Every structure is written in structure tokens, then in C-alpha cells.
């Protein structure tokens, strides 16, 4: 039981099984849990696998876990996250060019809540910091991996 999703590599390390076998077993486990009456199942999320509650039981779980304070994410934060996710690594200036407004406050908050991280510096005058999204971002938004995000061109055509 760890915080981070269990990756196939890690499973391989622990069980020393072949990747093919691991995948087969995982598929079996996932479908077993899905079919069962148990209130939890295995999710493929954030580049790994995690045990989580089924959405049908959400109301019950909410009653039990009073600790969970879901961070209310603002529109500005979502915009910034979207820009970073599609353009990473990206500097603050590049983000502000698209948004048209100052983003330093938003970036600080996103860093604080670990939705983004500093991935390095850009090799241009000023050496500005570069930002990328974290696995926590993937987890929070139910994404398996970054490439699961819809393509920018596709989403333009509505």
C-alpha cells in the first residue's frame, strides 16, 4: 500500500514475472474486481495501477472520510494546468503569453499542491524555470498517462 500507483516495472521487480504474464494477470484481476460486489476495484491511472473505490459507492465513502478536503481548483488554475500539460516543459512567460495575464500566483499555488513541478531551466537569457505536470495531476483528473489528453486540434473542432 503505497501512495504512488504501482507500475508494471515495479510489479516485475517484486514478482520477477514476465511482462506478458503480468499484463494477463492484471487484466484478470481488474475484471474480477469489476464484476465483484466489493466496493473497490483496480484502476489503471497515472502510469500505474491503484486500488480505489467504485464511483457508485462515492456517497458512502464521503461520509466515512471526513479528512478528505478536496482542493477546489480555480478556473485560472485549470487554464494554467491545461497549458502546461499540452506544452511541457514550458516557462512562466510562455504561459502568460497564451493566457494574457500574470500567472505567478497561480503557478505558486499549483506548485504548493504538487500538481506541477519545476523540471529545469530553459537555456535562454534569464534562465527561466520550466514547469511540467506531475503524476498527482494525472491522478486527480483520472488520466492514465499524459498522451491520453485529447489532441488540441481535435478539441478545436466542435
Amino acid at each position, binding site marked *: *500500500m*503505497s*501512495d504512488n500507483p504501482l507500475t508494471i516495472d515495479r510489479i516485475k521487480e517484486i514478482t520477477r514475472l514476465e511482462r506478458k504474464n503480468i499484463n494477463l494477470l492484471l487484466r484478470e484481476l481488474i475484471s474480477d474486481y469489476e464484476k465483484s460486489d466489493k466496493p473497490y476495484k483496480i*484502476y489503471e491511472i497515472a502510469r500505474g495501477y*491503484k*486500488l*480505489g*473505490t*467504485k*464511483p457508485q459507492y*462515492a456517497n458512502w*465513502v464521503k461520509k466515512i*472520510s471526513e*479528512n*478528505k478536503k*478536496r482542493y477546489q*481548483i480555480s*478556473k485560472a488554475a*485549470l*487554464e494554467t*494546468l*491545461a*497549458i502546461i*500539460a*499540452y506544452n511541457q516543459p514550458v516557462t512562466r512567460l510562455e504561459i502568460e503569453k*497564451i*493566457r*494574457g495575464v500574470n500567472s505567478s500566483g497561480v503557478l*505558486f499555488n499549483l*506548485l*504548493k499542491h*504538487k500538481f506541477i*513541478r*519545476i523540471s529545469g531551466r530553459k537555456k535562454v537569457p534569464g534562465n527561466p524555470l520550466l514547469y511540467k505536470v506531475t503524476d498527482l495531476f494525472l*491522478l*486527480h*483528473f*483520472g*488520466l492514465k498517462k499524459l498522451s491520453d*489528453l*485529447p489532441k*488540441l486540434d481535435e*478539441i*478545436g473542432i*466542435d
Partner: protein
Amino acid sequence: MSSTKAKFKIKFEKFEGSSNELVRSIKENIIDINYVPIVEILNHFLEFLSKNRGNIDIDIASETITNAAIILKMKSEQLLPDLKNKNEVETDEEKEDEQILDNKDVYLKEYNKYQKIVKYLNQKKYNQDDIFFPFGKNNDEKIDIEIQEVDLADLLSALEKILKNKKKEEFVPIKRRTFTVATKMNEILDILRYNKEGISFDYFMETAQTKLEIIVIFLALLELIYYKKIVCHQNGNFGRIIFYLKGEDLHSKKN
């Protein structure tokens, strides 16, 4: 208008006549204005005035002054940059405006795309909010103390909290600053040497009396981390941040 009064006549290399005639000639391009020696003409005029004092034809004299002023104006206008260039600059600005409008369209399109992404993400989050994942440790259980790596964001959050609380500064008499980053660094190292089990971030901040001291202590901590003299760990999410001398943290390895 008595004919005995002296009438001033302009005379120089290319011209002879009254000042009215001179101005007319210049305007009709018979004489190039660059060849009109205005200084010479005016000097003659002044000589004429002093020689013929009391006997000057005032009308002619005032005409001469007016025309001299006109010639001066025409000459100075020659010195200004060509008006034609000014017009060219204006059309360039128009072009720039068009370009900006085009760019604006592009920017708006990009921005709108991201708005759609925002809607998409919101929907995903809404779905994901119904799924709960267990955390590795429970806040209530004190059996396993999970230590995690502290990053800059955590330190900044802690500092932010401290500074907020110290907002109301009591009046402290101004005295010479007795501490620098260097002295604080040594102080911190001493404290950590005597307290091998580690000292918390809060403890260091409580010793500070002013906001300035808080910042200096924070900088000292960062410098010590940079020089690898100390390390810091955090007890789980939003737990206390503890500092140790480097090498002393052997007993607090991750379970």
C-alpha cells in the same frame, strides 16, 4: 508717404529690389532660398536704419521686417525632415496594427482551445472525485512515521504560514542588526550539533523576533542545504519539517 524718406532696398548677388519682390521671387522659385543671405540683408538693414535715423520710410521698413521674418520661417522649414517621410511612417503603423489584429485572432483561437480543455478537465475531475484512493498512512496512526523528501514548495508553504502569522509587528526599537546569514548559519549548525535528534522548522522560526530575522534564518537554512551541511525531512503530508546535520539522519530511514 513723403518721397524724401529713405526707402530700404535689398541688394545682394542674385537680386536687387524691394523685400516684397524678394519674397515673391522665392515663392515662385525664381530664386533658390538657399542663396538668400538673410544675415547679410539684415545687417544692411540695420546699417540703413542707423544711417537714416529720423528719415526712414516706415511703411517700407515695416514691410522689410515682415518679409525678413517670412524668409526666416521658410528657411527654417527647410531644416525640418521631409513631410513625405512622415506619411510613410504612418502607413507602416497601419500595417503593424493589421498584423496585431491577425495575431490577436491566432491568440484568441489558441485561448479558446484551452477553454475547451478546461471544460474537459473539469468533467474528468468531476468523475474522478467519486473515486477515492487510500493513502499509505493514516493521520491518526502514530505507528509508522512516513518520512518523505521535502521540496522547495513545502519549504515555501511553511515560510508563507510563518510570515502570515507574524504580520502584526510590535514596535521594536531600532538597533544595529546583530545577525547576518553567515552568523545564523553557524548558530543553526551549533543548535543542530547539540540536538542530534533534529530540530523543527517551527522552532527556528520561533526564535526570530522580526520578519527580517525570519527571512535571514530561512536563507541560512537554504544555504546550509545547498552546501549539504544539513538535510530536512517531513513527516507525511503537511507534517512538521525537521532539520538534521547531514549524516545524522541514519535512524530515520523510510520504513
